[in-house]
């Protein structure tokens, strides 16, 4: 389990009146769950990701993974970013080999993400969706406990995004990893998650918690179901009208 305990953070924490982005923020991510944080752009979602990943040190509070306080980045929490974080000068295989020496695991991850036939390709030779799958494969190759996805599908067009949602869901459920997805896309969060937390405000607060009732496996037709549409509009209302 990953637990955020009273996290407080400000970008100008040394000033007399720090403008707090997070104040005593608490969060629990259960093992194996797919949790989404949904909130408008600029509400501090990426800051939260950076704190969980260990890139930013919180002003106060702690991050606890399985009863251990973590203070720096590590292989137990891998982030997949919106912008490409693949090494453009390395082939698909080299991008994998730099994070893991386990050839069997690398092969498994490439097979799982359908990239086995592209090991000698450079990232620029891959489509947007394949690049995301490679980021996911690379994350899985490090065998982390948590994968943190910071708006990973933001730069893709809708068709690719929909297809990738199904693929990603299949892969993460197969790999049994715990996923934290940060997004402003309500539909994306509804389709992928077990649980959604709606964020708002400054400092950030959890405005609403939604448990998603849909079973796995899920496919795109789920988005046309009455329950999906009802949940989507209730979430939209919650975001727009507080």
């Amino acid at each position, binding site marked *: 389990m990953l637990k955020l305990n009273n996290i407080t953070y400000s970008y100008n924490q040394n000033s007399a009146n720090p403008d707090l982005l997070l104040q005593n923020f608490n969060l629990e991510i259960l093992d194996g769950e797919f949790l989404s944080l949904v909130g408008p752009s600029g509400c501090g979602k990426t800051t939260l990701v950076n704190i969980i*990943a*260990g*890139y930013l040190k919180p002003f106060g509070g702690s991050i606890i993974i399985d009863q251990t306080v973590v203070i*720096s*980045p*590590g*292989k137990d*929490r*891998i*982030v997949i*970013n919106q*912008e490409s*974080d693949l*090494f*453009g*000068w*390395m082939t698909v295989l080299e991008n994998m080999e*730099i*994070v893991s020496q386990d050839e069997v695991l690398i092969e498994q991850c490439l097979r799982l993400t359908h990239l086995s036939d592209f090991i000698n390709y*450079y*990232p*620029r030779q891959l489509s947007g969706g394949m690049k995301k799958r490679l980021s996911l494969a690379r994350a899985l190759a*490090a065998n982390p406990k948590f994968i943190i996805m910071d708006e990973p599908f933001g730069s893709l067009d809708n068709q690719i995004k929909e297809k990738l949602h199904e693929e990603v869901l299949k892969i993460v459920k197969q790999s049994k990893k715990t996923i934290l997805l940060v997004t402003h896309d309500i539909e994306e969060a509804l389709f992928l998650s077990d649980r959604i937390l709606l964020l708002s405000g400054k400092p950030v607060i959890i405005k609403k918690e939604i448990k998603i009732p849909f079973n796995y496996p899920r496919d795109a037709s789920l988005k046309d179901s009455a329950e999906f549409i009802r949940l989507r509009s209730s979430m939209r209302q919650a975001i727009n009208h507080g």
Partner: protein
Amino acid sequence: MKKWLIFFFTIITIQLVFLFIPGKNIFLPSPLDVFSAFIFQLRQGGVLLDIVMSLKRVTIGFVLAAISAVPLAILCGYSRRLSDFIKPFIELLRPIPPIAWIPIAILLFGLGDKSSYFIVFLGAFFPIFTNAYFGAVSLPVVYKNVAKSFEISNVIFITKILFYFSLPYIFTGLKIGIGMAWMSLIAAELIGAQSGLGYFIQLNRLLLRIDNVVLGMVLIGVIGFILTRLLTVLEKFSMPWLPKGK
């Protein structure tokens, strides 16, 4: 192909100017005069030795500059502490033209080749260092974060991430550096050498053989151009991940 046609057309035009406008060729040799001088020098073999000597000096000085500037720049890009220590010296020495070092070089290394290597080294070092350093400090934060998350060791980070990310910048520095090295060498040979293209120009200036002086200048230009093209080929070969045409 088109640019070469334009080039040859320009040379032919200059030659026609010399042929048909009387009085224009009193002081300056025509392209044909320079070509004749080149054929004569080739038969004699003298200029070939000068070319070889200059190339040897520029190669040794340039390679020494590259193998010291690139690692130092990458390490400065990696370590803020090292950068804070090294950069003031670099900034202090960089504005001094290599030609100003000639007296110091002669005092330190005498009139032989070593002085030339030193002057070439100084000419090439700073552009290579500056470009490689700029590349290293331009590494996006996202790559640094990826390296931290995946617990990539410092050695792998420097050699496989920082170095390769900086490679396009390094090649820009090398291309500027080879031009600077060549310019510095000719300046050094004009003053303190007994062979080389700089010496060839200086000697022919004293002999009032302006055709040979211009030949020396043309050879410098052509060899400089060839060296830059060689680096461009090496650049393309070294970075297969870049799209063609970049």
